[in-house]
């Protein structure tokens, strides 16, 4: 069963003559452990798709299934709880809290979920270390570069151990080198740590790290490319996974 599945997912903003169809009956699926990129010109609906899949917004029509469970049927409180535990978000502008350190920012989702601070901090430190931020635990966001701030944001997205990471233009505010590093990191998060990633980007170099690309235009999926579809490459990835487990 796919981890994410959409059925006729549609989002219309406004009504009557001024109505804008942002998403037009999207049917797509994301397999567990897959790294999927969604590309398309601005206004094509790719961010709307990400927001609906993440339960940040409600569709006008259609459903989003997370492990077969209908997100759109959940009450707001239940949806929020599910989102906190199952889905990690990464945004273009990091959205870190300026007065908190890297460690405190990364631990935040666990603290909000009632985990004891010592435990939350230990876990956040672990993820920051894996993401190459071990020597910056006590820096505040304004003491970090853009790429480093995004690493903290990724650690925050992973700290509750969600299966699914949703990333909306995570390299959009970075120079190409830092952007490449973040993309390579997302690749590792998928390959080494087995997380499913849905990435929205307009940058071909970033999308090239994915296993598959969906191309969108005018609220529809117009094409799809499998990048890592060869049996050999998948077998290799599997072997590497087996070794790390």
């Amino acid at each position, binding site marked *: 069963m796919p981890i994410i599945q959409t059925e006729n997912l549609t989002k219309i903003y406004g009504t009557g003559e001024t109505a804008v169809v942002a998403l037009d009956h999207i049917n797509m699926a994301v397999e567990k452990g897959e790294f999927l990129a969604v590309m398309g010109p601005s206004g094509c609906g790719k961010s709307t798709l990400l927001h609906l899949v993440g339960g940040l917004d409600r569709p006008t029509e259609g459903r989003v299934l997370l492990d077969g469970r209908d997100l759109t049927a959940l009450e707001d409180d239940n949806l929020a709880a599910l989102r906190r535990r199952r889905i990690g978000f990464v945004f273009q502008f990091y959205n870190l809290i300026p007065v908190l350190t890297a460690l405190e920012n990364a631990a935040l989702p666990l603290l909000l979920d009632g985990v004891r601070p010592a435990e939350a901090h230990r876990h956040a430190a672990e993820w920051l270390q894996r993401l190459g931020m071990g020597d910056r635990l006590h820096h505040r966001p304004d003491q970090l570069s853009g790429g480093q701030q995004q690493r903290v944001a990724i650690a925050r997205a992973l700290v509750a151990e969600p299966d699914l990471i949703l990333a909306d233009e995570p390299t959009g505010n970075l120079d190409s080198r830092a952007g490449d590093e973040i993309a*390579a990191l997302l*690749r590792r998060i998928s390959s080494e740590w087995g997380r499913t990633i849905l990435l929205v980007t307009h940058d*071909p*170099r970033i*999308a*090239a*790290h*994915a296993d598959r*690309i969906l*191309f969108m235009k005018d609220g529809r999926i*117009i*094409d799809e*490319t499998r*990048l*890592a579809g060869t049996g050999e490459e998948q077998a290799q990835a599997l072997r590497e996974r087996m070794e790390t487990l």
Partner: protein
Amino acid sequence: MSVRYALLGLLAQQPRHGYELRAAFEALVGGRDTWEVKPGQVYATLERLEEAGLIAEVGVEKEGGPEKRIYALTPAGREALQEWFHTGVVGDHHRDEFFVKLMVGLLVEGTDLHRLIQVQRNTLYQELHRFTRQRMEADSQTELAYVLFLDKVVMHLEADLRWLDMVEARLEEIQRQPTPQPEPKPRGRPRAKREA
């Protein structure tokens, strides 16, 4: 052309025999998968370089197997190499197969040009993915030259993809324009010059 001068450069570093040159060349450009040269090409090139006086045989290595002739660079060879260093290289931007395909697609009625572009885009993305993986696996502490080469490939593929987007965005406009025609030329044999 590049192989010829690369062999000169490798001989400028130290005298070597053909077998060694071939291995050294392939190592230099990132491995046999990147650029394979056949032994025959190496020996034929060495022969031509020797005839041109750019290299000379300086000895023979006999170790069990067949004799291996060792070559070194001559002063004329050193000069030719310097000249090559100080000459710019112009890439071949014409004779692009996809461009020809696109133009022919415009000619042939009923061609799904959007599909033609999509298929090309998919192919380029698969290439980009492959080189991106190689780039990630390469160690910039020890293989920086190769990493830079991969960066170049990635950047070119990226440019090709951006260009495809541009072509697709302007497809209808292109289709409205006349297809390029050969310039009209007078038929038959050229006429004798009129008397002055």
